[in-house]
């Protein structure tokens, strides 16, 4: 079943087209990421789902029911806010129980449910504290528990990991993923971090200028970017200019080529090669990232750390499998 459906949805703020004719269908139980730079429309799409914004035009359905004009408090959708938005004057337990309280659930029952939700996010016994007494990571878990205790059919997460440090972020990524699997709730996740989107999502919608540039599985988006924007934004693909691509014997047009698909030296059938002068080399641990200038284009390649790193100014030959070069539509 389709959890969230957007049909030609637009949201304009004056002359600004924050969301521009977006079509979207998120399946039930899916972990869906909306990826894009700030101002690309991803957060506005999330707010349209939550009900904080109404579409200027178009049609939105949540589990088959029309969502336009339905206020946030009548939607079976809950949000984890970027700044967590915990109520500072309530204890942690009261924060988590808030949704049940306003729905009129009896006190004993709602406090029990809140305790269970806190245990689920690994914060048992924290109920009596105030939000101000918790760390950023703990507040994030409370925000998650406060949303999940209402058993929403769709959980919206607005850059939930943005304020956490790297280690905590990686840990939370895994926990969110396993939580989503065990609960079977549809998660819609907004992020500007492509690594986060690629590692967590079942499908990704890449946003730019209020439009979806590409919608697909992480592998599709990463390996076969449809547009230059996607190639640039997702991962660190090389975007090759039309002349360079034509020079290698492909049809003229922009193409993407992932750095790890390129190897040092020329060899093998079905491979294309090019020669360039090394302009930069940096050590990344398992590999060195070597950038060469070849025929007017800058191309980065991953050279395994076991091989010798070519020095700057040296001329080297790289090759890649012709199949790995992905030609993109248009000049966007």
């Amino acid at each position, binding site marked *: 079943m389709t959890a969230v459906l957007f049909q030609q949805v637009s949201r304009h703020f004056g002359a600004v087209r924050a969301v521009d004719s977006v079509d979207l269908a998120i399946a039930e139980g899916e972990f869906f990421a909306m990826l894009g730079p700030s101002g690309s429309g991803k957060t506005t799409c999330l707010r349209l789902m939550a009900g904080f914004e109404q579409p200027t035009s178009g049609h939105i359905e949540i589990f088959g029911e029309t969502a336009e004009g339905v206020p946030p408090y009548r939607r079976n959708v809950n949000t984890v806010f970027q700044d967590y*938005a*915990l*109520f500072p004057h309530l204890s942690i337990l009261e924060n988590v129980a808030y949704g049940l309280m306003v729905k009129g659930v009896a006190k004993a029952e709602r406090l029990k449910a809140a305790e269970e939700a806190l245990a689920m996010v690994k914060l048992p016994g924290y109920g009596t504290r105030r939000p101000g007494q918790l760390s950023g990571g703990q507040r994030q878990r409370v925000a998650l528990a406060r949303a999940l205790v209402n058993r929403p059919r769709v959980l919206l997460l607005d850059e939930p990991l943005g304020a956490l440090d790297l280690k905590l972020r990686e840990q939370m990524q895994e926990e969110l993923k396993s939580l989503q699997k065990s609960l079977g709730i549809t998660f819609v996740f907004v992020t500007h971090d492509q690594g986060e989107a690629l590692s967590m999502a079942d499908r990704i919608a890449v946003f730019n200028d209020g439009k979806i540039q590409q919608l697909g599985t992480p592998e599709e988006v990463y390996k076969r970017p449809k547009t230059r924007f996607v190639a640039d934004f997702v991962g660190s693909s090389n975007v090759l200019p039309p002349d360079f691509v034509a020079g290698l014997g492909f049809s003229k047009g922009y193409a993407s080529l992932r750095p790890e698909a390129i190897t040092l030296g020329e060899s093998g059938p079905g491979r294309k090669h090019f020669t360039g002068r090394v302009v930069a080399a940096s050590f990344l641990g398992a590999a060195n990232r070597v950038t060469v200038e070849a025929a007017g284009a800058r191309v980065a390649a991953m050279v395994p750390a076991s091989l010798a790193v070519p020095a700057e100014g040296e001329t080297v030959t790289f090759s890649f499998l012709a199949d790995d070069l992905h030609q993109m539509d248009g000049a966007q």
Partner: protein
Amino acid sequence: MRSDRNNAAPLGLKIAAGAGLAFLHLPILLIFLYAFTTEEKSYQFPPPGYTLQWFAVTWNRPDVWAAMGLSVRVAAISTAIALVLGTLCAAAVSQTKFFGRETISLLVILPIALPGIITGIALRSAFSFAEIPFSFWTIVLGHATFCVVVVYNNAVARFRRVSGSLIEASMDLGADGFQTFRYIILPNIGTALLAGGMLAFALSFDEVIVTTFTAGQQSTLPIWMLEELVRPRQRPVTNVVAMVVVLLTFLPILGAYYLTRDGDQVAGGGK
């Protein structure tokens, strides 16, 4: 912060500051002093003798009770009106963006910046133009004009600190507008409203100028005192009433001061 001796104020400045404070506060003490004098016709210094009889005399004067009762009722109702309107206005100005928002914010504050005499004359001519007879309610309306400002100023500062996402979070969790106000907004702005309300009450309680223009035959307490000053008999009664008024208005203002100061810490604690 500075314990450096060289930064201590020179003696002359200390004396000047002391004299300034004495000038501000000694007259108030004199008022208290003359509440106990035995001389009822003039204020001679030092008082020829001391007595507590004026407290009993004041207690038994019906005109004191009438004026006091009127003032309390006017202040209470003006404050109540100000609490509702001031909060609504503060919510609109701080939580939403609309055309003319800055202008409205300025227009709301204007009555307190205007001299009371202008507000008074303006209201008086408006009332007579609309043929509204002077009554209890015209006094209340006059007072509400500046009471709203006090409440608004307190509330708007606090509203700005209640982040908009708290309200969205409450809505998201299933609370409608009323529940959100009751459970989220009110607890967060409560102390600011209490402080604003107390200030408004105190302002209304001792207001003279606007009241002179908007009252008919009734006298609020400050008006009654002005009338009393020109009468030669039982002068210390006025002093007794003045003492009570000082205590009645001083305590709420002190309370408001402590509440708002405390509120800063409470509101900051969530960040």
